[in-house]
């Protein structure tokens, strides 16, 4: 059996992993098809129908404090949350991998510099560092994305550096080096290939945390700014009305929870399937 088929078989054996994959696919489809699925424009204000309950005619999930259709805003919010969450993860993984490769391959003072910088970043409580970066850059969607990406760079840097240090001592890398393969090519082919499995698991497990952190920033008014549809900022503005319209607060949070749960279950499943030591 090929290694890939083996991983697929292991993955499919886990019910929760398949459920997680399903959740992620459904939310992804909702985000992609939002313009087709949404019954209304997410930004159209209708002051005559403010805070209507779910299952009202024309508004399956009711409306928010401006009379905007909640289902449409949730669907378009999936776009914001997933795109920004994935983008932040990609930026963090790319920056972290470069740092890890440099530290692992060049060694000496570069390694010292990178590792001490990582120690410093990790000396900050996770969410506090994102908030501190926003304090510097100013609130906003792109800044929020950058902030949570920077916070997660150490996570990837350490994974890649550890893999580099382990792989560069192996006989086949030694053999390739003896054949005159350049250090750059070595790092790009052999080492990165070995980093792939841990990185795939790390990225999947990380996306959920990214989505939560970004929603948290938006909830505090430091991330995505109104009137953009976004789960975190929807939750934030709904708080004033939760006595009269609890569903307006409940639904965006439920969406965040399902997205994060999906990625966490998927990541757990991938880790169990890709890490042979756990079998």
């Amino acid at each position, binding site marked *: 059996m090929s290694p890939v088929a083996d991983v697929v078989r292991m993955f499919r054996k886990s019910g*929760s992993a398949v459920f997680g994959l399903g959740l992620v696919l459904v939310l992804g489809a909702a985000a992609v098809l939002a313009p087709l699925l949404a019954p209304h424009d997410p930004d159209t204000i209708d002051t005559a129908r403010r805070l209507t309950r779910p299952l009202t005619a024309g508004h399956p999930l009711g409306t928010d404090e401006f009379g905007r259709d909640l289902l449409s805003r949730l669907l378009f919010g999936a776009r914001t949350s997933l795109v920004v969450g994935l983008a932040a993860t990609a930026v963090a993984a790319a920056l972290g991998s470069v740092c890890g490769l440099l530290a692992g391959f060049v060694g000496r003072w570069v390694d010292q510099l990178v590792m*001490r*910088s990582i*120690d*410093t*970043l990790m*000396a*900050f*409580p*996770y*969410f*506090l*560092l*994102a*908030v*501190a970066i*926003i*304090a*510097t*850059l*100013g*609130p906003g969607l792109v800044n929020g994305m950058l902030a949570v990406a920077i916070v997660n760079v150490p996570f990837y840097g350490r994974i890649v550096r550890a893999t580099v240090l382990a792989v560069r001592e192996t006989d086949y890398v030694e053999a390739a080096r003896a054949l005159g393969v350049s250090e750059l090519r070595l790092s790009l082919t052999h080492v990165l290939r070995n980093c792939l499995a841990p990185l795939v698991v790390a990225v999947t497990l990380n996306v*959920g945390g990214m989505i*939560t952190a970004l*929603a*948290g920033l938006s*909830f*505090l*008014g*430091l991330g995505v700014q109104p009137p953009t549809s976004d789960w975190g900022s929807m*939750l934030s503005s709904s*708080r004033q009305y*939760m*006595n009269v319209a*609890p569903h307006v*607060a*409940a639904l*965006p*949070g*439920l969406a*965040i*929870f399902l997205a*994060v*749960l999906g990625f*966490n*279950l998927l990541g*757990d499943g991938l880790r169990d399937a890709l890490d042979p030591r756990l079998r």
Partner: protein
Amino acid sequence: MAAVGGHGLQGYVVRRILLALPVLVGVSLLVFGVMRLAPGDPAAIMLGAQATPEDVARLRRDLGLDRPVPAQYVQWMGQVLRGDLGRSIPLGRPVLPEVLLRFKATVVLTTGALLIAVGLGLAAGIVSATRQYSWLDKLSMAVAVTGVSLPVFWTGIMLILVFALSLRWFPSAGMSSPYGGGFADLLWHLALPAITLGTASAAAVARLTRSSVLEIIRQDYVRAARAKGLAERAVIARHVLKNALNPILTVVGVQVGYLLGGAILTETVFSWPGLGSMMVRAIQARDYPLVQGGVLLIATTFVVVNLVVDLLYAVFDPRIRYE
């Protein structure tokens, strides 16, 4: 570093404290950068649009912004070490007393959450591991994966909806009743915020406790302990938990970081008078000294917590002292 401070526990403590110093310097550099790296002139931003050029120039001088950056850092660091964190312009007061007062509330909240996280997490993890694949194990791990996926601010809002607004069992905001309080009143106000903040961490601790206990349960010395007829309870308590303690301690240290960060969100949801909710307002008001003071205090606390966790390792596992 091996020679510094000699060998044994004492030497290890000295070496570990020395290693924390560069991290603290890095933290101070980053916190210093919060204001200096901001785009635009911090003095002009802090004073707002109505400020005259003379006001801006005066503030620039007061903050030392007219001097070279390394000199600014040395000046700022000197002030910090003397306990001077600057003045908050919107509040018109020195930052340090303001920040310390708020920090007390944050410590109360995070301690409550940590107790919940460790108590619940350890219990659930041990039960799960000792009854692997039983319905109890499956249930508690399903609850745990749900718990780690819950956004803390949403948990808080849902708890307020159910237990404060509908059932009226707990207050929805604040840290004490308007007229007097006492310890019971504090606990009554603390319950929902601490549960909110502690849930995700409890779930993370449970997952890690389960996997480290499972790893140790398979070791030969555990089999030997069972073979010599030791009761299962004694095997778990004396042989398994003692050895699972260090990985669990690691995750608790990491969780303190999550709790201190998550406190920012929890405090905002529950109008808890802590540092986090104050910093969010300070960021919106561009009150840089207040933000710097808050970030510096929390980050330093976290560095000290990690130091203590590392020292506890050496107490529980003598091998570490000689590395």
